[in-house]
Structure formats: structure tokens, C-alpha cells
């Protein structure tokens, strides 16, 4: 897979569970557990540096400082034995030469920035005294404390209820505008993508199946897998049973000759099982990997309303 991101831009990576979204993000941070994991080939360029070639010590300087990450579950991603303030101050002092007082001041600013009332008091509290939405705000404060250039948000709203989701997304968008941070938004919720991203990349079984601007994908989704994802969203006119994509993602330990999605694809033909489709640009800013979705051939989408 391949994608690029400019400053202040947001890219959405979508796909169902097990399609490799989170692995992509941990790879960028160089946090794939090794052994057994290994980056076989390819490169991750960040401001001209190839992150895959940096030493552990150099990576540590980048993590939390230039590239930060927000994790899925705010209930488990804060250390229960330290106060929230300590955890923010720690990351600030790790990367910036600030004394305790200045770091504390910065932590209070960060809490204020993410909309936590009474930051001086909240600073002294432990994570269990915070609600889920508040904890995610704290996580965002920690991630942004050193003004990173890139923020990886790994399903930042999945564990939160819907009203809090909206608040957190709004907050992230506002902070992005203020700080000019680029965001990689990992999610399986296309609604989140429509709302917050400029570009979107649909992943299936570790590969890109479709890559387009949000407008393009929203107007003209092309890959059958994207169609499946769209059909399985709850819409205002959804009645009866929610459609789903039958089956599960393939086991990548086995060699698969054809398209990874073919066994689950209602449009699959013989060719799909024997030959892997390349990712080609079928329209400006719209790449798709399907034998039957090319610039001069289109599939007729069955069922499901057009987004």
C-alpha cells in the first residue's frame, strides 16, 4: 500500500477488523513487535527521512514529539497509578527541555485546549476519576503536548458513545486547524471519514483496494468492497436486516493467487481467482484495484442505494 499526506491534511484509512489498519500505524511508529514482526521492504518517508532506517534511539526522539498516536480505548490507555498531570508532564519533559514548573504550566494549557474544565484541579486526579470522553481528551492532550507534525488516530472514537464521538471529532478538527497537524484517521466508520478527512484509503487484507479523495469516494465509490462497507452502514432509510459482507478476511499465511476479496465478492469472475488486480488510476485522484473497474469498463452496482 502507498499513500502520502501533506501538512494539515487528514487521510482516512478504513477497512473491517483485521484488514491491517492498525498494523500500518504501528509500522509508521516503528512499534511492530519484533520478533516476530518485521518490515520486509518499503519505506516510510517523514520530512525526507526514511523512518524504517532510523535507529531505535532516533525513533524514540520522533515518537511523541513529531509523530504522536491516539489509541482506541481511552479506558485502558492511561496508566492507572499516576495522576493525569504526571502523564502529560512526563511526555513534555521527555522531549522538551522544560523544568517541572514550566511543564506543569504547559500541561494545564493542554488540558484547557482540549476542553477540560478546572485544569489545575483535574491535573491532580487519577485516570479512574475521569469519564471515557474526558480520558480521550486527556489522550489527545498528551499526544499533542509536543506539537507533533503528524497525529495517528487509531479508531479514536470507537469506544465512545455517539454524542461524545462528535465532540471528540470536532475537537480534533479544531485543534488540527490551530496547530496545522496532519492526521491519519484510522477507522471503520465511514461517517467519521466523510466528516473529517480529505483523502480516504480503503484497506482490505493488508492491501489498498481503493484510494481517492473523499468527494470522489463519496460520489462514486468503485471497489465492490467499498460498496459492501457502504451498504453495511446504518442509514436513515435502513429497514429490516442490515446488509453485511458475507465471510471473513482471508488468512494471509496462505498464498492467494487472485484478488484477496474475490471469495466474498458478488461480482467475482474466474479471472479474479487467478490474477491479482493492480491498483490503477481510473479517474483523476481515484485509484482502485479491481479487474472490472477500469477507466473504460465499469461494474453495475447491485442493490444498495448510491451512498
Amino acid at each position, binding site marked *: 500500500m502507498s499513500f502520502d499526506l501533506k501538512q494539515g491534511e487528514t487521510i482516512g484509512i478504513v477497512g473491517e477488523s483485521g484488514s491491517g489498519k492498525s498494523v500500518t500505524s504501528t509500522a509508521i511508529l516503528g*512499534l511492530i513487535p519484533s520478533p516476530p514482526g518485521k518490515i520486509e521492504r518499503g519505506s516510510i518517508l517523514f520530512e525526507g527521512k526514511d523512518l524504517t532506517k532510523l535507529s531505535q534511539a532516533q525513533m524514540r526522539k520522533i515518537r511523541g514529539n513529531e509523530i504522536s498516536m491516539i489509541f482506541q480505548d481511552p479506558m485502558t*490507555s492511561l496508566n492507572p497509578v499516576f495522576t493525569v498531570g504526571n502523564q502529560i508532564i512526563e511526555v513534555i519533559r521527555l522531549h522538551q527541555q522544560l523544568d517541572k514548573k514550566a511543564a506543569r504550566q504547559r500541561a494545564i494549557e493542554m488540558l484547557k485546549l482540549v476542553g477540560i474544565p478546572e485544569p489545575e484541579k483535574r491535573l491532580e486526579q487519577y485516570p479512574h476519576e475521569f469519564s471515557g470522553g474526558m480520558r480521550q481528551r486527556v489522550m489527545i492532550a498528551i499526544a499533542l503536548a509536543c506539537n507533533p507534525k503528524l497525529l495517528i488516530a487509531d479508531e479514536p472514537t470507537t469506544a465512545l458513545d455517539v454524542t461524545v464521538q462528535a465532540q471528540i471529532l470536532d475537537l480534533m478538527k479544531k485543534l488540527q486547524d490551530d496547530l496545522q497537524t496532519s492526521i491519519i484517521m484510522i477507522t471503520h466508520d465511514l461517517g467519521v471519514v466523510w466528516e473529517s478527512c480529505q483523502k480516504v484509503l480503503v484497506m482490505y487484507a493488508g492491501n489498498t483496494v481503493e484510494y481517492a479523495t473523499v468527494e470522489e469516494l463519496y460520489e462514486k465509490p468503485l471497489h465492490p468492497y467499498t460498496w459492501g462497507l457502504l451498504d453495511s452502514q446504518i442509514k436513515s432509510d435502513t429497514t429490516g436486516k442490515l446488509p453485511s459482507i458475507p465471510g471473513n478476511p482471508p488468512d494471509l499465511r496462505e498464498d492467494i493467487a487472485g484478488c484477496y476479496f474475490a471469495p466474498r465478492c458478488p461480482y467475482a469472475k474466474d479471472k479474479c481467482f487467478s490474477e491479482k488486480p493492480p491498483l490503477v488510476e481510473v479517474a483523476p485522484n481515484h485509484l482502485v484495484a479491481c479487474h472490472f473497474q477500469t477507466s473504460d469498463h465499469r461494474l453495475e452496482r447491485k442493490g444498495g442505494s448510491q451512498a
Partner: protein
Amino acid sequence: MSNHAQPLSPAPATLAPNAPKKKSKENSVWSRLLKNKLAMVGMVIIAIMVIFALFAPLIATHGPNDMDLANSLSEPGIDGHLLGTDNYGRDLFSRIVYGTRISLIVGIFAIGLGGMIGTLLGLLAGYYGGKWDAIIMRLMDGLFAFPFILLSISLMTVLGAGLFNVILAIGIANIPGFARIVRGQVLAVKEEEYIEVTRSLGANDSRIIFHHILPNCMAPIIVYATMHVAGAIISEAALSFLGLGVQPPTASWGSILKDGKDFLVLSPHMATFSGLAILLSVLGFNLFGDGLRDALDPKMKV
């Protein structure tokens, strides 16, 4: 299983700004501990021991080594000898008071030594896994294979008698227990998401191990240490009973017990009171340790 101390009081996860101020975590552990009557009994016993040890010269009615051969083996209560005298006419109460010092010193320092080394080894084995884990834990299994007292005796035989060597021997014998319990904790804690978060924020290994994993392992370490101070006190008494521990004339509960066994029929008070001192102190540490475990995390099994 989450072994870090989590308050069990019905603590609301959300806190309205004007909600009554909730007790901090330490307070709720404390309040649960204070409510536990048995733990309080244990704490009182430990407090008395500490007072005896600190103020031994003030509390003791006689010098611990002052002999009065004319009054040897006198019954308790006679001539101002609260618990009677031993076979050299030394005041038994004073000797037991001074013996508290030895027991506490050995108990605390031996567990401190074993706890520190064991915790360090457990952290390394648990965090790095693989080769480190295999080497460290097989060594620990090797130490564990010896019966505790046999290991202490053989170490004492090699090291020679004396207070420092007693601490060393009992400390070494306590390393594997700590290493195992800490390793188990580390294996659980290092998979927690907040550790991954810390790594994603650029912390290095030593910071993750000592600043993030260790504090999350403290509850079981504290409980295990408290309970094993009792074990160390028994070990010291056993070694002194066998003549391998603290050397005479220094008063130690084990050596008083040893002297007493020769006069068990004639004057049973020597063995009885020194034995009671051992029993009470062990009981005290065990009750307190039990209470501490329940207060920190009722689900925890040490």
C-alpha cells in the same frame, strides 16, 4: 486480571464539577485497611515490636547480658524479673526486648535485599522475555528447588555465622519468590495499552520498566514482602536455634529458645516466652499482610 490497586468503593466514573470531593486512592486503601480488625491487630503487634526495638534500653528492666548466677532460672515475677531469668540469671524480658531488634533487622533487611534483587530480576525476565527470561527463571527454579531452610543453612555454613551473613543468607533465599511474582506481574502489565502508549510517546526501555511497569507491580510486591518478613523472622530464629545465626551472648529469640530447650522440664518459661515472641511477631506480620492484600485488591492471590 488487573492487579493494580483499583478502588472498589462505588466510585462514579464521571465526576460532576460540584459533586462531593471523592477520597483519593490512598485514602480508600487506608480506610479499608482500618476497617479490617485482624489487620489492625497485626499492625498493633508490629507497632509494639518497632517500639521495643527502637527503645529497647528504656523498656528493658535489666541489661540483656547482665548475669546474676545466684538467681538463675528463677520463675517469672520474682525479684523484678518480669518473665524470670535464664540459666545464667539474665533477665528474660530484657533479652526478649533486645531480641526484637535482631528479629526486625533481619526480617526487614533480608526481605529488602531479596526483594530488591528478586524484583530487578523479575522485571528483566518479564520485560525482555526470551533468552533473558529463560536464563533468569531457570536460575530461580534452581534456587527454589532447595528447601528454604536447607538453602539458608548451607549458605550460613559457607558464609559463617554473624548478623550480616544471616541477612545475606535469608535474603538470597528470598530472591526467587520475588522474581517469580514480579515476572508474572510484568507479563500482565507490559501488555496493557498504556505501556504501548508510553512507548508511542518515545519513552525508552528503562523508563518504561522502572517508571511505568514497576509502580503497577507494587501492590503484590508490598503484600508479598510483608508476609515474608514473618518468614524471615522464623528463618532467623531457626538459624540461631541451630547455632548458625547471631552468636551469643547477643540476645536473639532463636538462641533463647535453644537455651530454653535444655531446661524445658525444670523451667519451661524460657522456651515458652521466646517461642511466644516468635509466634506473635509472625502472627502480626501475617495478619497485617493479609489485611493489606484485601485492602489493595481482594482478587489478588499471593
